[in-house]
């Protein structure tokens, strides 16, 4: 080791270390520190101010006895399963249709994707307006002559979560379509030719050859959508504000309300810790799958 050219280890690459200071602080203080803080304080009796008075799992026990929380979880499950299923299926079908060397591809892509540029607040308010019984779809159908037509999706608590699903799909399917289209374009043309030579019908080629080959795209999409589903907040605030009653509450809203407007910090922290756990349950298996075999070179991002 030539001492004259290589400086003392901590000073080596000093500029790079200085440049990385904001990242290091963010990682240590925010992503690690704040998360740990939340987990630790979720075991305390904190109300409007944080206190270090540990009460074990009391907050969690109380949380799962609260109907508003269990309703939130149920809604998140319904919203999550329906959004995932429909956005993946519809997104893939749209992408497969767009991949048929069609005309006006750019126009269609623009139309499918523009809702994704809009905020959840805008999305929520527009669909609130379209689904309002007194003005929206219900009134339009009644005006057409079907006078007993009922579409109480926003006023009957049993259906409100589906309104959120509809709006969420409108906003998000375009993104899935774009990702899937990119995935389809990466499939070698030779595969299609070979399948055609073997006389395999198109739908079978998609189902048994193309989709399995697109596994990485599906997984990435799945992880991205799941992470946004768990966080869903703005959309609910704008579309239903959790109502009627508590019918369309979601965990993220529970956390916000208990932390910032009800002054019941312990509940908010316990609820957010459950959210964190949910994300880890999704993320850890994915990370293990993704990062274990590192011999696969290349990939979408290098």
């Amino acid at each position, binding site marked *: 080791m030539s001492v004259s050219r290589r400086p003392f280890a901590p000073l080596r690459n000093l500029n*790079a270390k200085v440049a990385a200071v904001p990242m290091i602080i963010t990682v240590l203080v925010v992503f690690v520190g704040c998360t740990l803080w939340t987990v630790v304080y979720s075991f305390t009796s904190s109300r409007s101010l944080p206190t270090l008075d540990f009460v074990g799992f009391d907050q969690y026990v109380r949380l799962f006895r609260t109907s508003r929380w269990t309703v939130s979880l149920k809604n998140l499950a319904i919203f999550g399963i329906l959004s995932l299923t429909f956005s993946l299926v519809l997104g893939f079908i749209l992408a497969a249709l767009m991949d048929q060397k069609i005309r006006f591809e750019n126009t269609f892509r623009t139309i499918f994707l523009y809702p994704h540029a809009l905020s959840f607040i805008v999305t929520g308010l527009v669909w609130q307006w379209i689904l309002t019984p007194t003005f929206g779809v219900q009134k339009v159908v009644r005006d057409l002559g079907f006078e007993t037509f009922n579409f109480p999706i926003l006023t009957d608590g049993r259906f409100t979560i589906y309104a959120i699903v509809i709006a969420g799909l409108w906003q998000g399917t375009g993104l899935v379509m774009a990702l899937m289209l990119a995935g389809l374009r990466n499939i070698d043309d030779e595969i299609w030719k070979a399948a055609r030579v073997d006389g395999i019908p198109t739908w079978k080629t998609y189902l048994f050859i193309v989709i399995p080959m697109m596994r990485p795209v599906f997984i990435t999409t799945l992880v991205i959508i799941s992470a946004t589903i768990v966080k869903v907040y703005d959309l609910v605030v704008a579309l239903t504000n959790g109502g009627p009653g508590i019918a369309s509450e979601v965990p993220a809203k529970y956390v916000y309300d208990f932390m910032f407007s009800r002054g019941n910090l312990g509940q908010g922290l316990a609820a*957010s810790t459950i959210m964190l756990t949910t994300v880890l349950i999704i993320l850890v298996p994915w990370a293990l799958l993704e990062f274990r075999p590192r011999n696969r070179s290349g990939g979408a991002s290098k």
Partner: protein
Amino acid sequence: MSSSLPSFEPRGHRPKRFVSPASIMIYSVLVVAAIYYLIPLYVMVMTSLKGMPEIRLGNIFSPPVEVTFQPWATAWNSACTGLYCEGIKVGFFNSMKILIPSVILSIIIASVNGYALSNWRFKGSELFFTVLIFGAFIPYQVMLYPLVIITRELGIFGTLTGVIVIHTIFGMPILTLLFRNYFVSLPPELFKAARVDGAGFWRIFLQIMLPMSLPIFVVAIILQVTGIWNDFLFGVIFAGTKNFPMTVQLNNIVNSTQGVKEYNVNMAATILTGAVPLLVYFFSGKYFVRGIAAGAVKG
């Protein structure tokens, strides 16, 4: 195929294929889907151009009989959010005041991070990077309260600086990933040659890397502009009542419980709030898609 040819000229099999059952099916599905995606935009625009009496009587899909731009003026100048009746323009300027510094700051920091991570790795840099990427998936709700305490201690809670710092922090994972992947893909010979010539960390960054990075900067700007403009949660918590961004003010205008709901004004305000990201989207088409794809790449 040149479009100047008259359409009736015989041209082999193409016209036949164009109307094959398969293509009819493909186009009809796509057109139906396109209508579904366009309806909300159509309804928004139509509603915002009607007067209230016409809204109460007519249906939401019918075009306005009498076009009026009054709702737009009201939405911009005098719609009420909470106690104030100064219109959505207050929110618009707040959003701008948040947007511009947040975008600049987050992109500067992330590009330098990405550059350091790709060309000047140091012990632990990969570990920090991995945690950073994982941080992107942690629900914000988990970090919110401690961040409120930190910003309050720093004296920036409820200020524009506070919300700008928060946006910079939460933009960091995806932007750093974007820049790192881009810088890794540049030919390493350039970097080596510059080092041999004696250029240091900052000089290589400013004189060699930056001039080659325009495409990735465009993508990063698009991602950040749409992301920050559309934010609601950080604005409502960290910006403070005076500085509420447009999304928060819009929600306050539309979902306020008092008074008669002026749907036309609400829809005009909604369009105005959606206008900035929509313009970005329409004028940057290809880059927007690339930005989305880049935001989706694996770490």
